[in-house]
């Protein structure tokens, strides 16, 4: 995976200079999810099928709750019928606890959370805002080390791996992406990366344009790739790199 920093002209400093997590960051990704990806998945898998969306580095919860909100608003029946699961994992147990609690500060909800979502799906508690029970029930928050075993990760329809790999070296990035491609993403599933991240077809992925966003899907598996490759991908990263 290659990284290319986005241009940041000096005059944009006032508006854009933040690394804070934000709700609905890169909004076109969420539009792609509700306008293209979910309708396609529901059509392919049938109206009764459940959907699992994984946010592997959920931080304080802004991304998984954005996913849950976007789907709840666009496809309320999926949530009503308990057919949506948003798996939110992070290395930090405290961030997982925060995500599970669905509690956000005033500053956090000021960053990207539409006011109508705030009023409809959150309750004010002092200076904090707490997500509704219905929304929290969609979120399955668990600690997980992306470099270790992934026992809690089921087959998923969509993976939001946005800017989660930037601090890792290229080999480790590739191993994680291989594991997602082989062991996690269902056929027809979508992987979303950050806007400045890309993977190439020689890494086993194909790029798709969905609305104004890019997603990645698994290329058809080689006919004889051998069990060795699959088992290496199933190992924790440290062992996988050694083998």
């Amino acid at each position, binding site marked *: 995976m290659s990284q290319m920093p986005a241009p940041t002209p000096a005059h944009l400093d006032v*508006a*854009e200079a933040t690394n804070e997590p934000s*709700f609905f960051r890169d909004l076109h990704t969420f539009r792609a999810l509700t306008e293209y990806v979910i309708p396609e998945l529901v059509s392919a898998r049938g109206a009764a099928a459940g959907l699992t969306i994984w946010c592997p580095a959920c931080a304080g919860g802004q991304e998984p709750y954005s996913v849950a909100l976007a789907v709840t608003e666009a496809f309320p029946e999926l949530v009503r019928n308990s057919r949506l699961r948003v798996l939110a994992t992070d290395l930090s147990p405290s961030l997982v606890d925060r995500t599970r609690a669905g509690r956000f500060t005033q*500053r956090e909800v000021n960053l990207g959370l539409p006011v109508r979502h705030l009023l409809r799906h959150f*309750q004010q508690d002092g200076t904090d805002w707490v997500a509704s029970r219905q929304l929290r029930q969609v979120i399955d928050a668990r600690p997980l080390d992306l470099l270790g075993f992934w026992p809690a990760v089921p087959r998923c329809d969509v993976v939001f791996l946005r800017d989660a790999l930037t601090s890792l070296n290229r080999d480790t990035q590739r191993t994680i992406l291989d594991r997602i491609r082989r062991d996690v993403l269902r056929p027809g599933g979508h992987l979303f990366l950050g*806007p400045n991240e890309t993977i190439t077809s020689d890494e086993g992925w194909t790029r798709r344009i969905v*609305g104004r966003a890019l997603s990645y899907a698994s290329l058809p598996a080689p006919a004889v790739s051998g069990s060795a490759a699959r088992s290496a991908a199933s190992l924790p990263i440290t062992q996988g790199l050694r083998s």
Partner: protein
Amino acid sequence: MALALVVDDSRASRIALQRILISVGFDVVEAEHGAHALELLHGDDTIELLVVDWHMPVMDGLALIKAIRKDRRWETLPIVMVSAEVDQKQIARAVMAGADEYVMKPFDGPMLISKLRSLGVTLPIDLEAGLR
């Protein structure tokens, strides 16, 4: 150039809002209260965005929003309220009156810009525009 109207009785707030909006490509006109804003709106049909405080002398932000939404010319004008009112019921009042978005003070650039994006306002300069 896209024109935004900033309405706030605090000069410091107007300057802060103006800096943020200019940084994403808007041209900005200012008003100190709601009545002044209505005058400007009547005199300039190129205003594409209204950013308004709540508590102001002469005519407050809520009254301004109600007056704007009564006029068919401005029924789709994007309105963002930026206010120190942070109570859920008060925020709901602003939305009921016709505010499309709401930013609780204290605010900064990323907050306002993220709310403009979620509102669907086209930013003249936008690093998150996605594929075109």
